[in-house]
């Protein structure tokens, strides 16, 4: 697999920064936080979230289609339409059998489950919607995307918690490199900002409680960080072999040149304290890319704004990447998109490489004194030959993607 270059020819984003690549990229480059008090969480112990602004599925999809899709699938379809259009591919004429879909999510459709649980309790089992299962099953993310685009090749949903979107991109790279597909729609989507899920995160102590100043609640690598802010959205990439993309004259945003996936095998929620698992994923991605750790110039970190993750990841970066790369976490803007985070952040890393801009680490005021890495405190223009996008999930699952220019 080493040396196999996979091109990204289409990008689609739905993030708290906005609907579309343009608004989302502008929001992270501007370092504009999106976290706010959320009325849906009015009775929750933590009421802060980062929502996608102005998302109207009836307009963005058809009302009939939207009615039968959970929000996490709605996000994915909107992002996938943007990505396919961006790639200038026509699903009405492509050979669907050669098109795969590999998407990641952490939890499927908990909003649908919670709504229907209310129906069960209030009105009885015989009033529960027949759409409960087909709307909330995690695999519907890829299944519905295949229906939308006539993609009849391999169809997978990856669940590695908050690494899911990145792991899906890595699995897509493997499918293309092995010749099992010619085109893969890859990425992740998540819509987990529901009262029950957020109560669970709050009870774990994972969320920021900075309700007096919600817009600065997500503070990756900051001395005063106190937890993450949950976000929602989707990131979808159109991936194909570089040779195929060049043959059809496609615009290439960048290349996924390496993929590493590991497990901490340590604890159900805490990362290995010295970042051993994510280090192994980074080393595997760089080996896959045929690159040296010192060659990395930019890292889009997992950087959740939780005390443990940021410290472990920063120690890993300092220890492993001796080239002193410029590190950012875009979660200061978007919050933590959970199963979609890895895909959205891989897209941001690709845009950094393409446009030669590293977005600022929004929310970072005074870096934690124990963290000794070069953090982007403002948008920084720089050419990037090699970038990394890191992702870590509960359960100790880690993914790193190595990204290079076209």
């Amino acid at each position, binding site marked *: 697999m080493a040396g196999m270059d996979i091109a990204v020819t289409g990008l689609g984003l739905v993030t708290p920064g906005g609907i579309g690549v343009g608004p989302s990229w502008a929001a992270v480059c501007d370092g504009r936080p999106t976290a706010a008090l959320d009325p849906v969480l009015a009775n929750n112990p933590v009421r802060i979230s980062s929502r996608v602004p102005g998302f109207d599925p009836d307009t963005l999809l*058809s009302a*009939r289609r*939207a009615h*039968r899709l959970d929000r996490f699938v709605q996000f994915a379809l909107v992002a996938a339409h943007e990505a396919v259009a961006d790639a200038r591919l026509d699903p009405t004429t492509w050979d669907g059998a050669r098109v795969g879909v590999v998407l990641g999510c952490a939890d499927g459709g908990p909003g649908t489950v919670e709504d229907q649980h209310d129906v069960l309790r209030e009105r009885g089992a015989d009033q529960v*919607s*027949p759409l409960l299962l*087909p709307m909330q099953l995690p695999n519907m993310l890829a299944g519905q995307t295949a229906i939308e685009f006539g993609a009849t090749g391999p169809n997978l949903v990856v669940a590695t918690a908050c690494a899911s979107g990145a792991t899906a991109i890595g699995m897509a790279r493997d499918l293309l490199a092995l010749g099992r597909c010619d085109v893969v729609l890859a990425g992740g989507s998540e819509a987990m900002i529901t009262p029950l899920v957020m109560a669970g995160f709050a009870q774990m102590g994972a969320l920021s409680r900075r309700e007096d100043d919600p817009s600065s609640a997500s503070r990756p690598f900051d001395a005063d960080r106190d937890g993450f802010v949950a976000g929602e959205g989707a990131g979808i990439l159109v991936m194909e072999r570089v040779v195929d993309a060049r043959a059809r004259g496609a615009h290439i945003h960048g290349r996924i040149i390496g993929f590493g996936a590991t497990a901490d095998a340590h604890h159900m929620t805490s990362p290995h304290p010295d970042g051993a698992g994510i280090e192994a994923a980074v080393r595997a991605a760089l080996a896959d890319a045929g690159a040296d750790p010192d060659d990395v110039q930019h890292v889009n970190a997992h950087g959740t704004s939780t005390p443990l993750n940021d410290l472990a990841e920063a120690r890993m970066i300092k220890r492993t990447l001796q080239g002193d790369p410029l590190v950012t976490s875009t979660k200061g803007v978007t919050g933590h998109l959970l199963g979609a985070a890895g895909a959205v952040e891989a897209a941001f890393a690709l845009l950094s490489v393409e446009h030669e801009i590293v977005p600022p680490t929004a929310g970072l005021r005074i870096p934690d004194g124990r963290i000794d890495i070069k953090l982007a405190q403002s948008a920084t223009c720089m050419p990037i030959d090699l970038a990394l996008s890191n992702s870590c999930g509960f359960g100790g699952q880690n993914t790193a993607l190595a990204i290079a220019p076209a």
Partner: protein
Amino acid sequence: MLEQLQEILSNKLKVSPEAITPEATREDIELDSLAVVELSLLLKSELGLDISDDDLLETETVADMVRLMEERSAKV
């Protein structure tokens, strides 16, 4: 009854209103087996009519559904 059915189909199931004509078949208005169960539940909760999904699956068109609704309504 036609108006009531049209309202449920368009407002609750988001079927395109212009598609809901008396001659329209279940296929024309995209009522698969899952949507038929949804419609059965809505006819009960919105109009108090007991019409099972199996009953609805025996109908061919919107006009047939309206006839069935009228029959069941008369028995209420």
